[in-house]
């Protein structure tokens, strides 16, 4: 490689790494704002603002969904297996909404600690399987246990790390 080419290569690599560092620092500084939602642990620790529009996310707790017979009102608990968040909502839920499924709720945290959702979005995990397999797993007592175990592990890890402090939106 000629010295001139070598110099050019270093200039380019230098430029790219400097930009990478700049972008990295920016993303690091904004990390709380890039997170799409607060987890129940963060809300329980008081990191989320009250009565301002925020998003919260986690798993719909098993056996926590209560539907009103007369209206579209629904209440459920969102959990990260460390802390719980009570959510109430009035409207149509997405098809994938069910107990044990990940959700993101958009709305406002009330002063009493409950969450009034304006919108409920279902979160899908990265696992796909045919219905027969899911049924077999369920009969064997697994589904959606292995996903839950994973979520619980994440919750534990967050707890140990003291949870990154989420600033206001």
């Amino acid at each position, binding site marked *: 490689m000629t010295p001139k080419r070598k110099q050019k290569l270093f200039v380019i690599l230098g430029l790219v790494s400097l930009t990478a560092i700049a972008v990295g620092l920016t993303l690091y500084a904004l990390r709380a704002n*890039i*997170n*799409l939602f607060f987890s129940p642990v963060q809300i329980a620790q008081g990191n989320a603002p009250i009565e301002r529009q925020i998003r919260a*996310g986690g798993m719909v707790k098993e056996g926590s969904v209560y539907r009103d017979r007369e209206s579209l009102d629904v209440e459920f608990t969102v959990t990260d297996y460390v802390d719980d968040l009570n959510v109430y909502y009035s409207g149509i*839920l997405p098809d994938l909404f069910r107990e044990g499924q990940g959700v993101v709720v958009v709305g406002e945290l009330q002063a009493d600690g409950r969450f009034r959702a304006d919108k*409920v979005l279902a979160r899908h995990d990265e696992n*796909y399987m*045919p219905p027969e397999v899911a049924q077999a797993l369920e009969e064997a007592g697994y589904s959606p246990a292995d996903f839950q175990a994973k979520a619980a592990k994440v919750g534990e890890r967050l707890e140990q790390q003291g949870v990154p402090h989420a600033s206001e939106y």
Partner: protein
Amino acid sequence: MWAFINKLRSPKWFYGISAKLQPWFWALAALLLLTGTLWGLAFAPADYQQGNSFRIIYVHVPAAFLAQSIFVSMAIAGLVFMVWKIKIADMAATVMAPLGAAMTFVALFSGAVWGVPTWGTWWMWDARLTSMLILLFLYLGVIALRGAFNSRDSGSRAASVLTMVGVINIPIIKYSVDWWYTLHQPATFTITGRAAMPMEMWAPLLIMVLGFYSFFVGLTLMRTRSEILRREANKRWVRDLIEELR
């Protein structure tokens, strides 16, 4: 290695070798895409939760793979062009950009169509979706920047620098789902590690991914060849070639 790079200096050599390679990639692409589409749409089982809408994965994932790979290829080509002054690299980067932009659009569009039945929304400003939208703008920026100069050489250099700097977005796209809380789930299809789907769902996806890549290679060879003819139109060997065809 150096011998190969030196050979790449000759557009004529590349024009010859690509003519031989090209049909193989087209044939492979046609075979894989046909097999993958039929298998994925008709024979692969439906998902236990999403039902048939999960089949969008067979277009969405390969398109998203290609969108990112093409950008990385363009950045490598840009580096080769800037440092070693190999013109073929710049020609390849030029012709790859529109396909990359199209694949990014396909990934975003199919993702939006998929998001409506599964998530309950077609768009959310989460880290994965936003960084992918930035990739689309980067592609459009590179294409526009290249055309914005009167001299082709200045345009090529500006586009190469923008591509090399923009490649920083690629790891952000890839790891966004691990670094931040996002609506988008983590990767299902990974080259390394356990696949998060059974074989009968995974195999057609692999075939589709390989098919998309073959299509990309075939199309890039074809379009680079026409770019060579366009840029070298006044060279002796191109004129001889045209004479022969007459």
